[in-house]
């Protein structure tokens, strides 16, 4: 018999005692462009309002990729599509409705979306919009390092899939989600403004006070925006990036550290196309070449801040030479595709060999032209100690940031959006108040475990590759060999990185 889960019934009477809590931001604080701050046009429709302040079920602060994905996901599910959603974001780029021109070179800000994210988008009906713009699938990946001792090749065929991932510009993802939402009939309003402060009213029932307790919006969160607008919401979602204002206002602390590295990103052109992604770990940090189609690729090159500043300011020819050197020659010999001789211990594993284990080392394509500006970003690891607080929940970079070395960052964020929208739907199905902590805690427990596991692994990689030490180099080379030839391990890694597996080992 299939039974649903029921909440504990307490015959005892709960006293709804509470205090008034106010969170004010410094109005003089100039919060500069975290990626979440983008603006969107306002459609003015009057929704439920008491004393003329509009009320929403969900207020999403931050209209970036992850915030939009949450909105789109809520719009696509029958249980949640009747919810009133407000999106608060002041970035002018979103306001501009000009279409993305196909002839333009790709924007250097791209993301690699995993197959799990692609399924998420397809489920919401948003992937069809992504397909209208440039997007590049890749089905192979090669990873090696500067010592030239070993390499690993991954192929989607190893796990019986067609692709390992897809490289898409961030603005394409964002625009697709916005279009998908607009085509649905969900009740939403976009506020092109910034969040200034937030108040969580809880009236004092015992002392039976004042006017607050009799207002229908008494316990909702009140948001004050920088343009003077005001709104109430049952649930405030912080999707406003790593410097999340919502997180600060809710008083949620974080743990983390800065990496002694910055990343340079840019778009380049090369001689031939390939459906292969490349990553080489150099002494100072990895360089990744991600295919974007039409002979374009995206470069993400991590190095220490001084070098990053130099490489950004050097002229184009020198920069291209540096990139080509980093990808090939200048830093050590090519790894040989030597097979471990004659069976031995690993013969029993080899019976199930992956096709990519037999592929030889391939030299990445030569870069011929720089096709965009070079942008530099500092890198850090950050994890919010709590994802939820009364009526507040964090998703995406507001809750966690990771090193870009495995292209997982935004995929974790999409995973958060997916999980939160499902939890909200479960809440609506049984008539819960969607801002209730017990409901939100379900989201937190699901995502914290998965996010922390991924972050720990990525941080481990970052540290393992930042040391140039003979015996450690050999160990890493052995690891490369091991992963390349031990197929169950390789398949596990591919499944995990594709998002098909939630935790690295015990799924």
């Amino acid at each position, binding site marked *: *018999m299939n*039974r*649903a*889960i*029921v*909440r*504990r*019934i*307490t*015959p*005892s*009477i*709960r*006293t*709804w005692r509470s205090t008034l809590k106010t969170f004010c931001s410094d109005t003089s604080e100039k919060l500069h462009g975290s990626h979440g701050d983008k603006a969107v046009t306002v459609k003015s429709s009057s929704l*439920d309002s*008491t004393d003329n302040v509009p*009320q929403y079920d969900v207020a999403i602060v931050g209209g970036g990729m992850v915030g939009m994905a949450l909105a789109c996901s809520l719009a696509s599910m*029958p*249980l*949640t599509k*009747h919810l009133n959603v407000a999106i608060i974001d002041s970035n002018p780029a979103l306001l501009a409705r000009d279409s993305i021109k196909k002839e333009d070179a790709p924007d250097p800000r791209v993301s690699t979306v995993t197959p799990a994210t692609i399924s998420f988008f397809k489920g919401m009906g948003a992937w069809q919009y992504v397909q209208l713009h440039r997007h590049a699938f890749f089905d192979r990946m090669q990873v090696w390092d500067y010592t030239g001792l070993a390499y690993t090749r991954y192929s989607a065929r190893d796990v019986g899939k067609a692709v390992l991932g897809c490289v898409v510009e961030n603005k394409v993802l964002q625009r697709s989600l916005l279009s998908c939402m607009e085509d649905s009939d969900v009740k939403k309003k976009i506020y092109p403004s910034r969040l200034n402060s937030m108040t969580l009213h809880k*009236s004092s*029932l015992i002392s*039976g006070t004042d006017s607050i*307790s*009799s*207002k*229908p*919006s*008494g*316990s*909702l969160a009140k948001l004050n925006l920088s343009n003077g607008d005001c709104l109430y919401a*049952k649930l405030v979602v912080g999707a406003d990036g790593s410097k999340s204002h919502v997180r600060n206002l809710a008083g949620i602390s974080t743990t983390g550290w800065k990496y002694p590295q910055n990343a340079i990103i840019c778009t380049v052109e090369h001689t031939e196309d390939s459906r292969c992604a490349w990553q080489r770990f150099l002494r100072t940090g990895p360089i990744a070449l991600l295919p974007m189609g039409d002979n374009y690729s995206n470069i993400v090159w991590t190095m220490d801040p001084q070098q990053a500043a130099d490489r950004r300011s050097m002229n184009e020819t020198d920069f291209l030479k540096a990139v080509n050197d980093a990808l090939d020659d200048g830093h050590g010999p090519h790894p040989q595709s030597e097979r471990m001789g004659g069976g031995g211990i690993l013969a029993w594993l080899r019976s199930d060999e992956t096709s990519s284990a037999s592929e030889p080392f391939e030299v990445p394509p030569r870069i011929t032209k720089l096709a965009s500006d070079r942008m530099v970003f500092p890198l850090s690891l950050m994890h919010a100690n709590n994802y939820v607080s009364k009526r507040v929940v964090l998703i995406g970079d507001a809750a966690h940031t990771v090193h870009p070395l495995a292209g997982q960052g935004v995929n974790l964020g999409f995973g958060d959006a997916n999980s939160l929208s499902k939890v909200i739907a479960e809440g*609506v*199905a*049984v*008539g*819960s*108040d969607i801002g209730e902590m017990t409901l939100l805690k379900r989201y937190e427990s699901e995502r914290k475990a998965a996010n922390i596991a991924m972050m720990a692994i990525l941080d481990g990689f970052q540290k393992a590759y930042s040391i140039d030490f003979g015996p450690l180099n050999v160990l890493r080379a052995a690891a490369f060999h091991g992963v390349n030839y031990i197929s169950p391990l390789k398949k596990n890694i591919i499944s995990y990185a594709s998002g098909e597996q939630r935790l690295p080992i015990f799924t």
Partner: protein
Amino acid sequence: MSPFRDPYSAKPFEGLKFVDVGCGGGILSEPLARMGATVTGIDAVEKNINIAQLHADLDPGTSSIEYLCTTAEKLVEEQRKFDAVLALEVIEHVAEPAEFCKSLSALTVSGGANVISTINRSMRAYATAIVVAEYLLHWLPKGTHEWSSFLTPEELVLILQRASISVQEMAGFVYNPLTGKWSLSDDISVNFIAYGTKNTE
């Protein structure tokens, strides 16, 4: 033939009148109201009704709940009728369960639903609901429940039958101490819930 109601919609109880007997602070009334029902919550203790009213006023989705400090018997005298009558964790506290069931039945329209939940009068229930819950874990104040006033499922079915309600389904609630979660199960030896329909005349 009653119209089909979509169990997966956000407001499956739209247009139905429910009464939550012994509503306490409104813990059941509020979700039902959010799911579209027109809810009346009654409780014999005035303090409960006051708290329930104040809390329900905080959310526009629940501010329409009608809270009354009264008993099921008095509501019968007012000749109120409801599509569904719910009495969760109440019957073990009333003096005359058979009379109580007759009142619940009188409040239900013909063919309407009745949901009653209570604790089984079994040894396991004594051990868990009284000894553990009241004396060891202090989940409930001591003396909340009297083992002798618990009803067995058979007894409940019988008194409901005498009140013209046919029990259609029964299930139990079990608590998993490892996960801290309650779930619905077939084990009716401690907490159980019964769903019945009022016989059509």
